């Protein structure tokens, strides 16, 4: 059963097309990842699905209601955590919880139960009187998620919930997302941390408003990366990359911090060929070369490169 069905959704701002005729389905209870670089159109799509932005054309069914015709019904089915921090910094933790449960019209006993729940998932038991603005980023995001689902919606939209949060808090946050999903809540989450997408049941990647790939992470990797991948560590990755681009056994090279990821074709017979090629050209040291399984990041970069080549 689908929680969300998107059909040919398009949004233009003047002449600029932010979301370009996209269609996808999200199954009930799954974690659905929405990946894309800055400005790809993730937020614009979510705002349309939440019923706060009218699509230019196309439609979507969210929780069984059309966002074009029944946006007010859609709103009763969903929770939304916007990209910007959406709680009141000048209210205390408890005041924020009380406020949002008031806005969602929770009865008194329900409020008590949900307040306890929100406080526990945010690790804020006994800290109800703290000003929300004074909390650390990771805790703030957990509190924001808690209040976004205080009315127990069947679908929740999370727009870059982990941006600007430290890695450990990010991991904890994803545990929370998992927990919600296990409870049967459909979660649509955007991120540009591609490694986070590994936690999603299904993923779509969008670029310039268009879907460039979809599937689960395994499918994406096997569908788009046929070659072997190597990770190479060097003291001058930039220079080494420039050289490797000339090698006939290399299809793509991309840089990840101090490392290079290279995708090689059948012309590469053994690993040593790489080292000897580099040593012929330049005098930089190669510390290690290991075969790796491709990450989603590799897939994404591969797809973007392919897109660029098409344009050129």
């Amino acid at each position, binding site marked *: 059963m689908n929680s969300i069905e998107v059909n040919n959704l398009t949004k233009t*701002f003047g002449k600029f097309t932010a979301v370009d005729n996209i269609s996808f389905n999200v199954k009930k209870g799954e974690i659905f990842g929405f990946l894309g670089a800055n400005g790809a159109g993730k937020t614009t799509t979510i705002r349309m699905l939440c019923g*706060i932005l009218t699509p230019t054309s196309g439609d979507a069914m969210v929780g069984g209601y059309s966002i074009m015709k029944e946006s*007010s019904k859609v709103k009763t089915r969903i929770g939304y955590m916007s990209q910007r*921090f959406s709680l009141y910094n000048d209210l205390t933790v408890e005041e924020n919880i009380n*406020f*949002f449960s008031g806005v969602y019209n929770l009865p008194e006993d329900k409020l008590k139960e949900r307040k306890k729940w929100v406080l526990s998932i945010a690790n804020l038991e006994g800290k109800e009187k703290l000003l929300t603005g004074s909390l650390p980023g990771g805790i703030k995001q957990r509190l924001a998620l808690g209040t976004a689902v205080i009315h127990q919606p069947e679908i929740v939209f999370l727009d870059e919930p982990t941006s600007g949060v430290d890695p450990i808090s990010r991991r904890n946050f994803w545990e929370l997302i998992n927990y919600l999903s296990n409870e049967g809540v459909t979660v649509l989450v955007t991120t540009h941390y591609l490694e986070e997408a590994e936690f999603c049941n299904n993923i779509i990647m969008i670029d310039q408003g268009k879907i460039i790939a979809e599937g689960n992470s395994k499918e994406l990797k096997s569908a788009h990366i046929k070659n072997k991948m190597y990770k190479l560590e060097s003291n001058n990755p930039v220079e080494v990359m420039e050289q490797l681009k000339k090698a006939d056994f290399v299809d793509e090279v991309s840089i990840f911090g101090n490392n290079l990821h290279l995708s090689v074709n059948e012309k590469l017979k053994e690993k040593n060929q790489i080292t000897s090629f580099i040593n012929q050209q330049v005098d930089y040291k190669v510390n290690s070369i290991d075969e790796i399984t491709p990450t989603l990041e590799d897939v994404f970069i591969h797809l973007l490169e392919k897109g660029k080549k098409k344009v050129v």
Partner: protein
Amino acid sequence: MFKRTIAIVKKEVRQLRRDVRLLAVIFFFPVMLLIMFGYAVNFDVKNIKVAIYDQDKSELSRDFINSLNSSEYFNIIGFINNYGDVNKYLDQKVALCVVVIPQDFSKKINSNQETSIQYLIDGVDANTGSIVQNYMFAATGQFNQKVNSKILAKNGLKEFTPLSIETQFWFNPDLKTTRFLIPGLIAMILIITAVITVALSFVREKEKGTMEQLNVSSLKTIELIIGKTFPFVVIALMNAGLILLAGYIFFGVVVKGSYLLLLFTTLIFLTASTSLGIFISVVSDSQQVAFTAATFVSLLPSLILSGFVFPIDSMPWIIQLITNITPAKFFINILRAIILRGVGISAFWDQIIYLLIFIAIFVVLASVIGKRKAESV
């Protein structure tokens, strides 16, 4: 539905308690205006310190002195017996004015001859000086009339005044500044606090991004507006009450008309101010812009164009037309009618209609522009 509105009211009050800037607006503006107003009241010179150099010491001269003393404008602080003291009194600011009555004062009057009284006025503060002068003219004129009619009566004739002096102050037409300014003051304080607080409170949600969170809830626009404006309307009403109380305690201004009518019309005026505040919040994107726009739009017209200080009747017709952009103009007319004249709704129903038209215009403007903006944001 009611519960959601109450949740917003509570939240708004909690935020207000921690918002120093907004609190300052709410309390600073009224206090500042009251001080300005207090200064204005100083123009309404009372108890002018007067010293008298009575060289005549006759029944007639005492009569004149008594007429000065019995008016609330003059306060006779002493009698002088030589010219040397005149300078001393004025230089040391013991008196603002010295009245010199010549030796032959009563003799000349009794023999139907003209005489003159000398007023020596401290002119350092030119403004006050000229006001004192005017009061003195008025007092002399009154005395003249009194003496005239006595003499005429003695000769069996009736009084006839071909020309009488009428002093007009542009800011104070009936010499009762206080009474006249109170309605304007109430209107001005209400519109400033209401427009600024409402505009800021909406724009803050927009700027911080919390508005988006409210938009995805099933909160209705009307619930949001009522919830967010209710606390500020209550505060504005309290402010109005305090000014009335101050007007009563310090200046003896009492409400002649109906309090119920006063409350009813004030609520209409606050609705107008609120719609102006919401309009500003719709067109501005930051608190900074909203604050500046709200201050400008609420303060200037209600000070200059509302008839608060400058009578509208004496403005050029084109400016008279422009005065209609501020709802304060209509409200001041209503307040003067209720507070000063004590008349009923039949005397000012047209002003209420104007206010309602103002509200309609701004509600429509705000929702049209707001819709258009929502589509492009």
